[in-house]
């Protein structure tokens, strides 16, 4: 391109920019970024003290296994939220996709193929969400609320609300482990491996690729992005497809863990996933959020759940604590926005 050279204009008004407070705000910015990590570490330390068995390899692995579902869903919904949207359908999609996978496996489709069909079902429903948002111009809340009801209804209809046992081998994905050395170390569960791999992959996509950059641009300023030649609809569709695809992945993992189709499963998980994203610093206003943050947010919720249980707090108390954490995180988000 042609380089434009402009000689400095006889030093025009050098004082127009305010320089005060920049250092302070930079510090605060970084503090904001690290706060979720600090919270997680503090939680782990506290629970290690209050619950004797908390900080053991076996328990940490089980915690990771439990948390993997919400983490994977959270990563997906983070994309939708960054574009300025939301995806309420992912809990139902988990049930639907798991059910579909089990049903086609029962019908004789090879198991590996049934898993792929399950995931593609999720991606397809995500595409439908995207089209409702981009073509029908529905608010994402409404579009995905509708999908939430429809997907749950379909899952219940095709199974007649019953749990069908999956064929032999279907359970490997959810229950298998790797690197096991016998009873002392049962190995790392596949879902944990999948979670780590997916987290790295989507972190890379979001932070290092054009698709990721466009996701932020659309959420940060849709009109500016459009006038920059970015195809808004395409970017949003991809975000919802990712959200649906990862819900599908969770769907087959959960169905595999239970080795049955569970049309009633994962009810309300979408809210935990959204909470994880928000705790991790994703702004519901769009334009802000990271995969890493969502993973940490999800682990804050998971650690609280497991830690409180092991410390003797009952389920109801856990609900209260997690609710307060979400409120606290969003309050923090508001302060960040106000600056």
């Amino acid at each position, binding site marked *: 391109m*042609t380089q434009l050279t402009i000689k400095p204009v006889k030093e*025009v*008004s050098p004082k*127009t920019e305010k320089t005060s407070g920049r250092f302070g705000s930079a510090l605060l910015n970084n503090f904001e970024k690290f706060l979720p990590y600090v919270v997680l570490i503090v939680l782990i330390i506290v629970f290690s003290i209050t619950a004797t068995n908390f900080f053991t390899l076996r328990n940490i692995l089980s915690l990771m296994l439990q948390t993997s579902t919400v983490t994977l869903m959270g990563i997906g919904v983070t994309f939708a939220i960054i574009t300025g949207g939301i995806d309420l359908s992912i809990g139902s999609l988990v049930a639907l996709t798991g059910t579909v996978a089990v049903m086609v496996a029962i019908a004789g489709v090879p198991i590996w193929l049934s898993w792929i069909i399950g995931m593609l079902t999720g991606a397809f429903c995500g595409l439908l969400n995207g089209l409702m948002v981009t073509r029908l111009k529905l608010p994402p809340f409404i579009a995905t609320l509708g999908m939430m009801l429809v997907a749950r209804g379909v899952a219940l209809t095709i199974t007649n609300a019953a749990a069908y046992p999956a064929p032999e081998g279907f359970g490997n994905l959810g229950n298998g482990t790797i690197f096991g050395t016998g009873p002392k170390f049962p190995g790392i569960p596949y879902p944990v491996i999948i979670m780590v791999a997916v987290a790295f992959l989507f972190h890379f996509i979001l932070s290092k690729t054009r698709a990721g950059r466009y996701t932020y641009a659309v959420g940060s300023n849709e009109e*500016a992005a459009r*006038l920059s*030649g970015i195809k808004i609809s395409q970017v949003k569709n991809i975000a919802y497809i990712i959200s649906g695809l990862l819900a599908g992945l969770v769907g087959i993992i959960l169905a595999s863990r239970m080795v049955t189709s569970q049309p009633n499963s994962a009810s309300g998980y979408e809210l935990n996933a959204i909470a994880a994203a928000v705790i991790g610093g994703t702004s519901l206003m769009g334009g802000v959020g990271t995969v890493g943050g969502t993973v940490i947010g999800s682990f804050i919720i998971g650690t609280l759940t497991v830690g409180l249980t092991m410390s003797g707090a009952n389920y109801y108390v856990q609900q209260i604590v997690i609710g307060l954490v979400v409120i606290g995180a969003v309050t923090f988000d508001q302060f960040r926005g106000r600056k």
Partner: protein
Amino acid sequence: MKALDRVSFDLRKGEVHALVGENGAGKSTLMKILSGVYQADEGTIRYKGNVVSFRDVTESHKAGIGIIYQELNLIPHLSVAANIFIGREPLTQFGALDEKKMNADAAAVLSRLNIRLDPTIILNRLPVSKQQMVEIAKALSLDSEVLIMDEPTSALSEAEIDELFTIIHALRDHGVAIIYISHRLDELKHIVDRISIFRDGHSVSTDDYAAINMDEIVNRMVGRKLENQFPPKVNVPTKEKLLEVRNIVRRGILHDISFDLYRGEILGIAGLMGAGRSELGRAIFGADLIDGGEVAMNGRKLSLKSPSDAIEAGIAYLSENRKEEGLAVKMQLAENITMANVQEISQRFGVLSRNREMEVAQQYVKDLVIKTPSLSQVVNNLSGGNQQKTVVAKWLFCDSKILIFDEPTRGIDVGAKFAIYELMGALARDGRGIIMISSDLPEILGLTDRLVVLHEGSLVATLTTAETTQEEILTYAAGIATAEKGDARMSNQKPTQTRE
């Protein structure tokens, strides 16, 4: 750094007192202290002889100080009357809203100001200028004795400005003291009694307006001599047609508009607010779909279905609303510069090269003299002038051949304006074509080679800048005269080289 440093200021009953200064001079801070948004760390405010200190806006309102901000603080989905009386709605004896009384009271306030407006109309049905009138009515309905107006004319057309000035005169005659903040120095002469000049948080001077001339005002504002508001002409228009716009129609908005843009030329688009200037720019850019007509670039017809088509062809549109449409303000400087051409910094599989991005950003920061502490600075924290340069950098990185600047200097201070003007000149000099949409006529006259004037969506005149005057442009813009019907006659016109 102190936003305000031992500033003194006085305001008399029944005067219009202008407050001028570059961005960051402390005008807004002072206004916020007067209206109770901020509190002063030192010093006192006397109001009607008593020392006062307002803890919030409610207190200053009660005392009779009304403020009209640059951005309108109104609720779009409520009626005019509801907006005027928001927070103090009249109630019936049962505690329900007394719509009847509210509408009647609103009508009374409006008629006192000679504003013809139905109080029951929903606000977002009104043009911005009328909304501003509602804002003024709201401030006055509080029985304000002091009225602060921050850049009240920035969104108004010439005719609407006259209307506003009539209202300001009437208010002054009723004894209201008005603080009038504006970047548009040329309009002060119509209304101002006294003028205070601020610079870098200090009050430089306060004078009777009659006792000071424009050069002196500008000198005191910038603290140095500013001989010329506009840089010397550097571009030389060629006779090579770069863009041909033919019979563009957007139903109800643009009527059969045709004009040409030549390589190396700066073409102005003048017209009143609502004449379709921005809409014309957006149509050429493919941001709004047109119902008829065509646009050709270098003789090749363009498809104008979306901005990405125009960008690919080499057309850029710099929106008048920088923050809303030009920049992703939460994102970094470097990310904004590459936003319209991310392909250029992509490697295989769409993976971005951050190093390349930084190199690109660094180059433009240097070339365009963008003042920023770092390339990863969030754009929101840059000044208006530097934000504008960031948008320019974005389009230069796309190698745009035609840049449509829509109100390029709105909300930018005097010094930074000059830099933007220089930049536009240099872009044209390098063989690009520049279309400059502006409601600031001196700016259009100072910069362009030719200009077209729009009136209610039609092109009413094509003028050679060196041969026209502000008055002539205004007669066309106001629809008083028509030079042509916006037909193919245009193509016979040759650009005239202007000025020395």
